[in-house]
């Protein structure tokens, strides 16, 4: 399967485009390739789920897109049409480990203000922070410290902190991976609602295939070491999605089946190689 976006999308409509994206890190035994030869395009406003076997470079890919890790020189990676050099403008990472990425000495309000306080002051700042807190339903808890909140709420704070800066792109590394099933589904729906309101592009890593299909417009499956794109699934399910109805649709079940198969196959291939 060719991992290409169908149709010819104009460069201006692309949040990311990557040609021959590879990442190498230096080790004692010389350079080691973590991901190799990825080609993809991501349209603005798209929700992309990334699944794959462990070691396939999901997080590595996200860190490249977030400007935290450089790709090899031969890679051609553009964020909003510009080559990535450092963190691209209006791109924000949301980390899985919310507990260590929120600032424990700041109240929730001041955590959410983190990305705003150099630009806005006083009432303007308060209003933006309140709006972001409203998006995730945490305004009432604004003056508490994050570690007094449950895990799900802390992750919402992190999402609000990212949203407050009105990002064009949210890069999320297994953001719901550490949460229980119920909290997870409610946060999935909140995320979809927020995306509908803001139109942000979301690139989302998960190890949960069902979550990948439920959230995504497309699911990209990585596999192998170094990681490559093994499959891309178009998810043509109607929006807004619904935890029960959507998940009972034959197309959903079919896609979930295919995506599972893809991950399992990649896993088996990996074991054969080893």
């Amino acid at each position: 399967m060719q991992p290409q976006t169908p149709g010819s999308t104009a460069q201006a409509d692309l949040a990311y485009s990557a040609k021959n994206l590879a990442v190498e890190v230096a080790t004692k035994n010389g350079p080691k390739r973590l991901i190799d030869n990825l080609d993809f395009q991501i349209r603005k406003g798209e929700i992309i789920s990334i699944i794959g076997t462990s070691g396939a470079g999901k997080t590595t890919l996200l860190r490249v897109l977030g400007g935290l890790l450089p790709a090899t020189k031969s890679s051609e990676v553009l964020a909003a049409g510009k080559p990535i050099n450092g963190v691209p403008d209006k791109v924000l990472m949301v980390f899985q480990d919310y507990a260590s990425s929120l600032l424990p000495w700041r109240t929730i309000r001041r955590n959410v203000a983190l990305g705003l306080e150099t630009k806005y002051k006083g009432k303007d700042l308060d209003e933006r922070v309140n709006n972001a807190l409203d998006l995730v339903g945490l305004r009432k808890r604004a003056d508490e410290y994050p570690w007094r909140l449950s895990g799900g709420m802390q992750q919402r704070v992190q999402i609000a902190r990212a949203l407050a800066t009105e990002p064009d792109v949210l890069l999320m590394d297994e953001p719901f991976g550490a949460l229980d099933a119920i909290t997870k589904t409610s946060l999935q729906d909140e995320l979809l609602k927020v995306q509908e309101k803001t139109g942000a592009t979301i690139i989302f890593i998960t190890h949960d295939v069902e979550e990948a299909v439920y959230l995504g417009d497309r699911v990209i499956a990585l596999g192998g070491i170094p990681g490559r794109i093994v499959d891309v699934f178009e998810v043509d399910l109607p929006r807004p999605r619904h935890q029960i109805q959507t998940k009972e649709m034959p197309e959903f079940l079919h896609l979930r089946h295919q995506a599972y198969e893809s991950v399992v196959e990649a896993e088996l291939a990996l074991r054969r190689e080893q």
Partner: protein
Amino acid sequence: MSITASRSVKISPAPGSKRAWYTRFNWLGVAGLIVILGIWEIAKRTGLMSFDFIPAPTQIFAAIGGLVQEGALQSAVLHTAGVALGGWAIAVVVGVVIGVLLGLSRTAWSWTAASIEVLRSFPSITFVPVAVLIFGFSSTMELVVVVYAATWQVLINTLEGVRGVKPGLMETAQTFQMGQMRRITAIVLPAAASKILVGLKLGLNLALILAVAAEVVGNPAGLGYGLTVEQNALQPARMFVYFISVGVLGIILNAILQLIIQVALPGITAAAERGRRS
């Protein structure tokens, strides 16, 4: 690090928040102290304790009056407190700046690590005679010794604090595109704050210790000098007044620092409180 949903709403009030001061005060501790003083007094008066140069508590209290009237005690306290605090303040600035620099810069650390490891293992007090030789019997000598000793405490603790900042916080700083200065003020310093505060407290204690030591050995001023003068004059009651003043000064300086920290840095205090609980 697991924080569950059940532990969300009410948490007992932070210590010292709403309780009245008189219930927070350790009255039993004061009572214990009075009992000890009483036993001391009785032991001295009945001759159970036969050391000639240990005065009874009442004699010490009597000596305070004399020293205050002469003005000796006030000027000694002011001198020692002034040098200890002034030296400590310099040490805080120097120690935090260098500590942050070494904590963040791998290059700076590689160049200095060996020297720091060697120098920090010397007890600061061994430098007092060296300082006397270089700077003479002067307040400059006293200040240098105090700054030197306190700087180590602040520097080492700041360094450890900065190196202990969680990678998650540094990545947060990165994704929010913080510049170097903002990264330091918004992330590194607050994240390292509880460690830095430990350094501040230890530094303040050591500043007082070294100030007194320098006064005993070399600088003719302050509480340490008063202590030696009265010792040589065979005036135990007056000597004990200086002796006790050093202790009281230490307690007061610590209490003031603690208060400033709690008022000025509520978030840090709350986060540190949480660290102690979990």
